[in-house]
């Protein structure tokens, strides 16, 4: 009986960890992008959070990279805080534990174990919108 109850609690408490599938989403217009700094795109969408519907927000930095575009997740690879673009040093800085990344997302200093996650990016030829795969 005890084992049965414990199994039931374990089953109920085990998390549903699969998130929504990746899809292409509009993040900016080509004309939004400044010449010398990354564009901060905040993408919001409704999503199911347990029993309630809420708005999930993701932040991506988008920048022109030669003829193509580069998109980086704004989530620090160390412990998940939100990194910010520092125009003075042209780096991304994490306000939590001091991680610093260059504009390509590579670690410059501090504790991050990996570069900022690259996000797939493309320009929609019909709408000229910059889309990211999130």
């Amino acid at each position: 009986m005890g084992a049965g109850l414990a199994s039931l609690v374990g089953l109920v408490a085990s998390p549903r960890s699969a998130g929504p599938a990746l899809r292409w989403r509009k993040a900016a217009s080509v004309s939004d992008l400044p010449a010398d700094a990354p564009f901060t795109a905040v993408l919001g969408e409704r999503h199911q959070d347990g029993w309630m519907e809420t708005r999930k927000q993701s932040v991506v930095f988008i920048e022109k990279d030669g003829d193509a575009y580069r998109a980086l997740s704004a989530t620090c690879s160390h412990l998940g805080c939100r990194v910010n673009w520092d125009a003075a040093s042209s780096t991304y800085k994490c306000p939590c534990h001091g991680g610093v990344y260059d504009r390509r997302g590579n670690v410059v200093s501090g504790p991050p174990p990996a570069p900022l996650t690259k996000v797939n990016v493309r320009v929609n030829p019909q709408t000229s919108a910059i889309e990211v795969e999130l």
Partner: protein
Amino acid sequence: MKRLTAQVADWLDNRTGFRSLRRHALDEPLPPGTGWWFTLGSLLLFGLTVQVVTGIALALFYAPTPDHAWQSVQYITTTVRGGSLLRGLHHWGASLVVIAAFLHLCRVVVFGSYRKPREINWIVGLVLLQIILAFGLTGYLLPWDQRAYWATVVAINISKLTPGIGDMVAAFLRGGPDIGALTLTRWYAAHVLVLPASIVVLVAGHLYLMRRHGISGPATPQPGRSEMFHPHQTARDLTVALVAGVLLAVLAWKGAPALEPPADPSSSDYVPRPDWYFFGLFQLLKYFPGRLEIIGALVIPGVVMTLLALLPWLDRGRTRLVKHRLSVLLPFAAGLAGLATLTVLGAMDKPPQTVGGAWNIRQIGGLASIQTEQRCVRCHRADGLAAPIEAGRISRPLDWLEMHVADPIVLAPGLRDAPQTNTGETRAILSALQRLRTSAPPHVDAETTHIYKLLSSNCLNCHTVDRVGGTEGPDLTAVGKKLDVSTIEQRIIDPTTVDPVAEMPPFGEKISPEDIKLLAAWLAKRK
């Protein structure tokens, strides 16, 4: 009457045996010299009792869902009678519990009270310490404000470092694919059900074992007669609890801790900092780059706890005297010094500078916009169509405020014209409204307020000043070092006259000449 009372007591004792329980609990002979150092455990028990009582009262009003948690805590703070005091007591009570647990642990180590036959009680005490820290961690998610959200992000990511099962542990703590409703409910369940049940069982076990082996007493046997626990030690315990209670009441009376803006995963202005008792770990995490992060996050804390747990077996001193136990006490003192240093360094790592206390330029500028006659105060005033906008009275969620500020016709049809769109000003108003939820604005003189309004409405969308604002344009924090006042003025009026390829739009027709002069003079002083 006396006889009747005695008869009732006899009857009860016959049925329950309460007199022998009382004797067992209180009539214990103490080793000579047992004194004030031995009140720390009772102080901890007092702190835990305060947390249980205030926690139950808070639970009467708290709603553990992301759409209501923040508002229910704000309701407790601003509307419930005595609610601010209640939150203050629970907040400072948590610090009291951590301090008392820590001092109690130090006392046990210095006096060698963990030694044979008290090894098991020492281990139980260390588990209790972990539960106390878990209370702190799960507790500060509950207000669902910015601090809560980002502290939980960091904590869950630390758990991912657990070798082999990290992702599973993190997923279990999160409850769903992202931190959200399912995280809040399970951390709430842990905070109010699982951890309290565990702590009650372990405290009972701790007290039982303490009584079974007796109080260890001073490390050096003292001459003199032993005294009974009651009333001598109980009097000391009550005195310490009374002093702590008064201190708690004074701290809580000064007000509940500021509730930060509601959790916002996209926020880029917020700088997360943990509660003071996690400053040591917070600082430690900065020193282990790359794949070494597991050392700061798990290995060092794990090794410290393991060494503490093994103390009764590592301590081979002939007696409990300090001079016979230096091989244990010196490393312990070094560890304490290390923790204290890390905690102080963590505390000194201040969030970026803001002006006017916790208010930054954008927020002060946004408040000035709110108070402009053509904007919010047209309706939001004492004799107006809507309630005045006051600190601590903003209860609508951010989504609603965004819609309302951008287009109030949708939410209040017929009440006013559509606002003149200015992204910078709208953003500043929203930022000020978020800040007003928790704190009253600072006093800033009229000219500075006006300049901040100009900055937040026109400049901060693209430029940063004092670490607030956009990053598309150059940082203007120290622009006075590079440009003189006339160049700045010209750049504002029409930047192409100074730089033919400038992308910045001209503001000569958007801002009055007097305001441009004012703005240029202020910026030129930024060096």
